[in-house]
């Protein structure tokens, strides 16, 4: 099976006042196409940092990340942005929806980002259909015009998943997707991720909960800044 993602010898440290905190110390990881990988580890071990680096949201101090064979951090900034738009979908623990936009607009946003103003008029109908379809799929077809503050936590996370999936990315990165939800809601979200994976979606999920990690095809543990 081909690797969608390959991270090699990732180092990352942060400065906390006068203290330099090394979070990742040579973490390496490969993700095969269609795989559901769970990254576990204790709180504060650098799981989210690793996920952000894998998704090109944060640069590593050292090391390389290859997405479909491209060295993400060697690419020109514009190419990297385009890659982030079309190849990677993010699901955050705190949803990170745009509060001014309704469900449909939030889900449409990645398509808008990837389309120029000139091309939008011709692709608008198709994009809206694409967004509606994914919203229906996550079970929010009746809530298209609702704003995030009118939705429950689970519904918000479904919108976040729909937004992450709307561009049909090769890789879905989920950072503690159930961390902010009650058990029932969390289960629903996991079921949704599982169904997406069964449909062929490659997913890397970060969680501190071993129970959730059990649902993954493969589990790796992050400890002392390295992947075990």
């Amino acid at each position: 099976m081909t690797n969608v993602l390959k991270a090699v010898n990732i180092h990352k440290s942060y400065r906390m006042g006068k203290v330099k905190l090394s979070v990742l110390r040579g973490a390496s990881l490969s993700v095969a196409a269609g795989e559901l990988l769970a990254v576990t580890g204790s709180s504060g071990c650098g799981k989210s940092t690793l996920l952000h680096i894998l998704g090109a949201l944060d640069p590593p101090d050292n090391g390389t990340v290859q997405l479909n064979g491209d060295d993400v951090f060697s690419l020109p900034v514009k190419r990297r942005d385009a890659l982030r738009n079309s190849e990677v979908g993010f699901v955050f623990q705190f949803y990170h929806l745009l509060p001014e936009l309704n469900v449909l607009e939030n889900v449409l946003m990645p398509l808008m980002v990837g389309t120029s103003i000139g091309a939008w008029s011709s692709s608008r109908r198709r994009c809206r259909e694409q967004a509606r379809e994914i919203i229906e799929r996550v079970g929010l077809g009746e809530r298209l015009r609702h704003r995030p503050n009118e939705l429950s936590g689970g519904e918000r996370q479904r919108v976040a998943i729909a937004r992450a999936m709307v561009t049909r990315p090769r890789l879905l990165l989920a950072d503690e997707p159930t961390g902010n939800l009650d058990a029932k809601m969390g289960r629903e979200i996991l079921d949704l991720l599982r169904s997406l994976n069964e449909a062929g979606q490659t997913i890397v999920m970060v969680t501190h909960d071993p129970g959730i990690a059990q649902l993954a095809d493969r589990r790796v543990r992050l400890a002392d800044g390295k992947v075990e």
Partner: protein
Amino acid sequence: MYKLFLTLRYLTRKWIVIFAVLSVWMCVAMVLIVFSVMDGFLDNIKEHSRGLLSDIVVDNASLQGFPYYDEFSKYLMDKSGDEVKVVTPVIYNYGIMREPDTNFTKPVRVVAIKLNDYCRVNTFRDSLYYDKYYPGTTTLGPFEVPLAAIPGGRPVLPPEYEKLFADYVAKHPKDESLKELKPSPFSPDGVGRFVQTFDETPGYADAEALPGIIIGTDVVYTRNADGSYNRRLFRGCKVILTILPLTIKGTIAEDPVSLVMRHVDDSRTRVYEIDSMCVYIDFDLAQKMLSMGPQERVDGTKTPPRTSQLLVQLADGVDIKEARARVQDLWNEFLGTVADRASPEDLNLLRLVTIETWEERQIQFIAAVEKEKVLVTLLFVIISFVAVLLISVIFYMVVLQKTRDIGIIKSLGATRGGVAAIFLMYGAAVGVVGGILGVLTGTVFVHYINQIQDLLAQLHPNLRVWSPDVYTFDRIPNVVKTHVIGAVFLAAVVTSTAGAVVPAIKAALVWPIQSLRYE
């Protein structure tokens, strides 16, 4: 696409943006109002200061004037073909005006003119009060005093005057100045104040027909708050003018010369410096009084007559600056023709002659107002910088508030340029919205500025900021020029966009995760 979408969404969903729009709105309206009023004021000054000059002015700025003006006038007319329409001499001097009935005296600037020619080179006739309503009755020559009779309790003027006034009213039914007419025991149905007779029928006084004098309105009258004048002089009343003649060398020639004259009209050019100083008398009379006419020399020859100034009016469409250069050349040629016969004193006066366009002549006066306009506008532009700063602070706050959104948008693949563009477009949109509102408010305000002032004055007289008894112009200039609107609007959009530059750069440069982690 997301840039435009988010810009519009932030514009309509963010309450904080209202403060930025309000700042731009107020600043644009403020600058537009100030600039338009000052610009209108300057235009009025230019228009009216041109009123007493001609296209080209030839003079030597000396009280003795300069000789050979009559010869030069003919020379100029002959040589310039159709380019020059009229050339007329003017003498300037100073004197004392006295009203014998009240012994009121006032120092005045005497302007001696050939009335008909003078009215052809400038708009002096438009400044005359009586001549407007009774055209053709104003003369600087011997003036017959009209008498108003009171047959039915209301004064009635001689039939010729009544007809002229009736014709005027018929031709100008909407003339605002007619509202000024307030029938009173001292006023006829027409305009102004006339000597009254106890006879049943109006007519003319048997008194001596003395030369006429036109008096600047602010020389003797005071203005009321509504802009009208207290015309205390009767038309045809006696006025004594005393002037001091000078020799060609500039020494006092003899005793002061006094002349009894009749007040025939009032002139209001709307330039206070002129209207509060000038009286107008006949050129030939003044030349004689001031010993500037031909004087017999010891050898029996005569001195050339002198004038203070020659006003040259060009034909329509002639370029004034180019014509001035040609008049200068002709003057230089002319000097060559008189050099052998002119006395040394004459030559001294001739050498002082300068030839200027009317704008060059009034440059100091106009430049002062222009500088005032620039200064006041600059002050308001400086105040407007506070608005730019405010916009910048508001955008900075918006960026801080939207830091997490910026991270989200970037995590979805938005480029640095795209994120910066959202905030720059946001700034420009604030400028456009505020600018449009400001232009509309400013234009409407300037258009109705006089009505607004009248309304305020009704609430309290002290709220009348542009009082006609203080300013020469009755009304506040109320025209907004299209190019001014364009410039102010453009400046609003540019400065609003500039206010968003720093926050936009800040938003663009951070890594997505830094924004997402922002608390």
